[in-house]
Every structure is written in C-alpha cells, then in structure tokens.
C-alpha cells in the first residue's frame, strides 16, 4: 500500500441535496504534489465536489452522499473518521478572503491553538513565521503581526488565509476560486504561490477562469451538471480534448 500514501481518490462519489442529485458518480484520482483544477460552468457542482473533500458540505441540512473519497487509502466518509482530524489534513482556502477579526499572528496561530499538537504549540512563533514565509507574505507583514488582519488588502488577506491553512501542516489544500475576488496583480501573486506550494502539498483548485486553470494546473477536470465530463492532463484537455462538450466549453462556445 506504500504507493497509495498521500493519495486522494474519488470513487463513484454522488451527492444529493434534498432530492436533487448535485454530483453524479464522480471518479477521479488526484495525484499528490500536483495541482488539479476543476473547471466548468457555474452551478456545475465544482465547489460542491471540492467541499466534499473536507466534508464542508455537512454544514448544510439535507445533504446526502454516496460512494467514497479515499485519502491515504482511508474512506473519509467512513464512520470511524474524525472530521476535525480530516480537516487538519485537508486545508481550505475560500473564494472571498475570510480572515478572522483578529491580529495577523492570531489568524495564523488559530489552527495550531485549536489543535492538539503540543510540539507545534510550543513553537508557535516559529510556526507562524514559517507559514507566513511559505505563503509569501512574511516580508509584507512581519512588522505588524499584532495588527488586525482586516486592515490588509484583499490579496494580502488571501495570502494570510493561505498561511493560516499551511500552519496546521495539511497534506492537501483545497482552493475555491481563491483569486476571483482579487485584482490581476494579487491574482498573479496567488498563482505564483500555488506553483511553489505544489512542491510540498497536493492542491485542488476550483476556478471559473480557464486561463488560470491552464496556467497553474497539471491536471484538469471538466464538470458539467454534476457529471465529470473529462479529466486528464491540463495540456491535453486544453489543446486536444476528447469530448465535444469540453472542447466547446474550452473554446468559449458556452459557459
């Protein structure tokens, strides 16, 4: 089972919202330490699929799931799985930067403080510094760690949120349109960061921006109406898609 370590596999996964089937039997292997992009028209279920990987959909009443999602060969929907533990392994960055109304330091320290990792708690300052450096924002905030994170610009806030997710040392990072609320320069910084982060982390990113998917991802999944239409190397999907619908979407015929 050695080979399977750190791997994320989605197997025949379906999700129902009340009676509606929002995701239909999706199967895909997400390679580790690569960037996997999920694209598709709005309402196709791409965010829902992403949020299934850290079980954030459970906060919504009336959601039922079928099938499995395996992380390190363990089904994350198994009863024995502690969802809190799972979310420490699978971090998440949201569409709109959502720092807590606390200091920059406290934002990044939050996950560690809430957790049970005594070692990390003892080296909290180190962890905060390392995370902010990894998120490429240390130089911009190192002199004002005690200031409120709400004072930062949107792009900086988003990188603090990324640092916050990195601080708990996840294996996988989910990004839900992380740059859609940002200006082009801030977006470029986030993309650069994603490129760097994949050395250490498995990244799954949802984006409505196809150029972004082409730029940052190694694998691309195209979803429509809750179905996985095509999944493969980003280069192949964008230059030589097998499916007609994919091609039409990629070339901007609809969406």
């Amino acid at each position: 089972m050695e080979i399977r370590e750190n791997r994320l596999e989605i197997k025949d996964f379906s999700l129902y919202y009340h009676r509606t089937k929002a995701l239909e039997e999706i199967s895909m292997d997400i390679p580790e330490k690569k960037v996997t992009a999920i694209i598709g028209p709005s309402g196709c279920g791409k965010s829902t699929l992403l949020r299934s990987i850290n079980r954030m959909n459970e906060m919504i009443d009336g959601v039922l799931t079928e099938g499995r999602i395996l992380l390190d060969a363990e089904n994350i929907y198994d009863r024995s799985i502690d969802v809190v533990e799972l979310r420490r392994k699978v971090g998440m960055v949201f569409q709109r930067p959502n720092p807590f109304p606390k200091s920059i330091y406290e934002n990044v320290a939050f996950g560690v403080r809430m957790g049970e990792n005594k070692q990390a708690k003892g080296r909290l300052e180190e962890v905060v510094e390392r995370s902010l450096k990894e998120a490429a924002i240390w130089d911009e905030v190192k002199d004002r760690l005690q200031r409120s994170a709400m004072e930062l610009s949107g792009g900086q806030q988003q990188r603090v949120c990324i640092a916050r997710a990195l601080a708990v040392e996840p294996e996988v990072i989910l990004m839900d349109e992380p740059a859609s609320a940002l200006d082009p320069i801030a977006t470029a910084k986030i993309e650069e960061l994603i490129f760097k982060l994949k050395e250490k982390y498995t990244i799954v990113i949802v984006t409505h921006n196809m150029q972004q998917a082409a730029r940052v991802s190694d694998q691309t999944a195209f979803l429509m109406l809750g179905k996985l239409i095509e999944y493969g190397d980003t280069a192949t999907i964008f230059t030589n898609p097998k499916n007609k619908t994919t091609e039409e979407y990629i070339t901007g015929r609809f969406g």
Partner: protein
Amino acid sequence: MPVTSEKIMQRLLLAVAFSALSALLLIAVFIISQGLPFIFRYGFREFLFSSQWNPQAGKFGIFPMVVSTLWVTLGAMAIGAPLGVAGAVFLTEFVPRTVMRIIKPSIELLAGIPSVVYGFIGVMVLAPLIRDHLGGPGLSLLAGSIILGIMILPTIISISIDSIMAVPKSYREGSLALGATVWQTVRMVTLPAARSGIAASIILAMGRAVGETMAVIMVTGNSVKIPGSALEPVRTLTANIALEMGYATGMHRQALFATGVVLFVVIMILNFSASYVMRQRKARR
C-alpha cells in the same frame, strides 16, 4: 382624490407618531417636575444614601431599596445571562435551523405572559420550595432574582440569536476548515464576533429587570432593609413606589416621585449604553 387622501393619511400618521413621543416627553417632564425639587430640598446624599425610610416621621432614605434593586438585578443577570446566551448558542449552532424557527418564537412568547402570572408562579411554587429547602420566609431576594432571571430570557435569547446569526458564515467556515471543533468555533470565533450584540441584549435585559414591578412585589416579601442574605425579604425601588403610592400625600408622595426619577435615570443610562454598544458593532463592520 388619491393625492388628498395620501396627504390626510400622512398627517394622521404624523400626529400619531408625535403623540407617542409627546407622551414619553410628558411623562419624563411630569416625573422630574414632581420628584426633582424634593431631591434638592431633602438633600441628594440624604435621599440616596440614608437607610431611614419612615414616611410618618418624615424620613425618606431609599438606600435599602437601592441596594435591594441592585442585588435582585444582579441575581437575575447571574441566572438569566448565562442561561440566555447558552440558549442562543444552542439554538443557532447545535440544532437544525427548522427547530430553531419553531423554538425562537415560542421563547419570544414568554415575553407576552403578564408579569402577574410570573409572580403568581413565584408565590405558589418557588417561594415554598425555597422556604422548605433553603430556609427563610421563602419570599426573598433569591425568589425575586430567579423569577426575574426567567422573565428576561426572551430579551437575551432573541437579541443574542439575531447577533449570532449576523456573524458572517465565512468566519465559521474558516474556523471549521482549520480543524476547529464546533464548540471551539463558537467560543473563539462566533461569540467574540457577536459580543457587542450579546452585550446589548444583556444591558436591555438589565433595564427590564430594574423596571419590573408586579412579579417582584409578589415574590420578594417587601420589607425595607438592607438584605443580609439572599434568603431575606427585600423591597426594590419599583415595589416601593407601587406599594405606597396609593395612600401617599405631600412629602411622601414627592419622595416616591423622586424614587421614580432615580429609576428613570438608571433605565435611561442602560438603554443608551445598549444602543451605544450596538452602534459600535455597526461602526466596526
């Protein structure tokens, strides 16, 4: 003629709105004009801080009532605030929304029960319980605090729920996604973000507790003295006015109005600070 009827309705509504405002103003002016001269004549310090209340002998010190009001209110807050906030947290974070939508209006219904009914339950059920299990006459500071603590629950729960629900969902999601438990999220993220609304609910509830009269008269025993323990009977400022107004004349009557002035000022301060705290929250957003 729609335009004319529009105008008439507008004038009518304006008149009604102003009548409510002028009623408030008249009450304030009346109480102050009746009570304030007495306070100056009798002496502010003597009135507020003397323990002698003996209208026949011309002694009007309301200190025991001030202390009793303070204790009854604090006791009510000690009971009602934790219960109310805990209830609000439970209903917003730990039960499905549909359940909350049923329970919240029922709690708000509690506010509609006449206070005499609360007092009646206090006399018939609570006072004997206290007498039998804890000693004392039963009608006591403790009984008053418990009854008031229950009476202020709707205020605290309802406003706290509103302010907890106003906390952006993204804060909660951010916290949960970092592997915080639901309880950690409540304690570290949701409650701090909602704290000004919760504080306002507690201050408003305090105003209600200070001003409550009927239930308090029925369950506190009403003897004029500084209480030595929670099991002793006390008389609050409101109870003092209500009990003696019927037969008071002259100085005595003015002294009661002066008591009203004190209450009026306290409640004004509480209400203003509640709306100040609420505004703070809006300014921060």
